[in-house]
């Protein structure tokens, strides 16, 4: 129970978010109307993606300081999880945009920034796959991961703020800022971020464990085969 309480919590929170998110009361805004409910999914997914990519960068730092492959496994899986959530965020966003803006992919600085950010992490995956030696792969891709995160944040959070965006809250569009998002919505929005992040951590934890088992098996095979040859 001590070990998996957070998985139960995650399921409960997500059920709560889905049920209350679709049924609960929301404020009525011009243009947005009922589609404001997408905040619980699209915006929360992006938030948890940022949290995951940040964690990935922290593990890359830890790897560079310690040199243990465990940290690198976690860094790469967190980056993969972040990428996956980013793609989900793009999909939920474009379904929403199709009905709100009338176009699944309008030419908006935030969307283009997101696409470039995804490209950056895909490049990270490509870089990882181009090495044979594990330590070398881990060290060089950690360096790239830190660099990528340092560029990713200005790309997503600073550059779009300098221009007008179609997104709510930019360029005079109705926003989810402090007085637009009422307390009813906040009761769902903050748990939603926590819930999606927990789900991501769960996913990533499973993948890290699979990776560890695979490595263990490979070493086992490598250790037993020579013995057989000697007999």
């Amino acid at each position, binding site marked *: 129970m001590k070990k998996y309480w957070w998985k139960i919590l995650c399921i409960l929170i997500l059920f709560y978010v889905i049920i209350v998110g679709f049924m609960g009361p929301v404020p009525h805004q011009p243009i947005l109307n009922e589609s404001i409910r997408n905040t619980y999914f699209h915006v929360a997914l992006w938030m948890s993606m940022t949290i995951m990519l940040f964690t990935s960068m922290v593990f890359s730092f830890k790897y*560079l300081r310690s040199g243990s492959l465990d940290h690198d496994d976690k860094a790469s899986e967190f980056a993969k999880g972040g990428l996956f959530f980013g793609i989900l965020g793009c999909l939920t966003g474009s379904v929403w945009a199709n009905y709100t803006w009338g176009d699944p992919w309008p030419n908006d600085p935030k969307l283009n*920034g997101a696409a*470039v*950010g995804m*490209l*950056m992490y895909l*490049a990270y995956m*490509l*870089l990882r796959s*181009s*090495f044979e030696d594990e*330590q*070398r792969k881990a*060290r*060089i891709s*950690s*360096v*790239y991961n*830190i*660099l*990528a995160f*340092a*560029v990713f944040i*200005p*790309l997503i959070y*600073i*550059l779009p703020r*300098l221009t007008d965006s179609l997104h709510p809250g930019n360029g005079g569009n109705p926003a989810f800022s402090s007085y637009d998002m009422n307390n009813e919505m906040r009761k769902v929005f903050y748990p939603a971020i926590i819930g999606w992040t927990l789900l991501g951590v769960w996913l990533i934890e499973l993948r890290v464990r699979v990776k560890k088992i695979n490595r263990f098996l490979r070493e086992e095979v490598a250790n037993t085969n020579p013995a057989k040859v000697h007999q």
Partner: protein
Amino acid sequence: MLLYVVSTVFVCYLSFNLRRGQLTPIVWNTIFWIIILFTAVNAIAKSFSQERYGRLIYYYNLCSPQAIIVSKIIYNSLIMLLLSGIGFGFYAFVMGNPVQDVGLYLICILLAAIGFASVLTLVAGIASKAENNATLMAVLSFPIILPMLLMTIRLAKNAMDGLDWSVSVDEITTLLSIDLIVITLSYLLFPFLWRS
């Protein structure tokens, strides 16, 4: 590399030869920065891969990794300054010069040269450790350099329209801060690359 810039500019000039009147300032600006981007990638990609293995070991014994990266960044910045300066001169000479505020445009070139050089030096260091490094260089560097390129194009557009300098302060500070972040990061991270 100088020949590379000049011939690329000339190819652009000949391709647009027939419709020179239709070349709007936006197109003029964008083409110039794309030429500079490709020149930068090609020029700086060599900075690690062209060195022989023995010489790298010699450097490794001789001085600290910080000294290496800082000197490489300075050297590449100077090269980029030279290339983009001459490139701009030649480009303006053959394609016509719609820039109204040349001073600001030159500042823009200066900031971009330093920024491109510092990002690409670190990425070249990363790519040189992998085997197929020409493709990898492009794949790794384009997404990272894009925010910088966008800011530069916007700043350059302001300079072309001859807007007041106070309009572009935002862009200049953002570019400067991105440059600073990247240079600090390369200073901190390069020792880990150098060891392998």
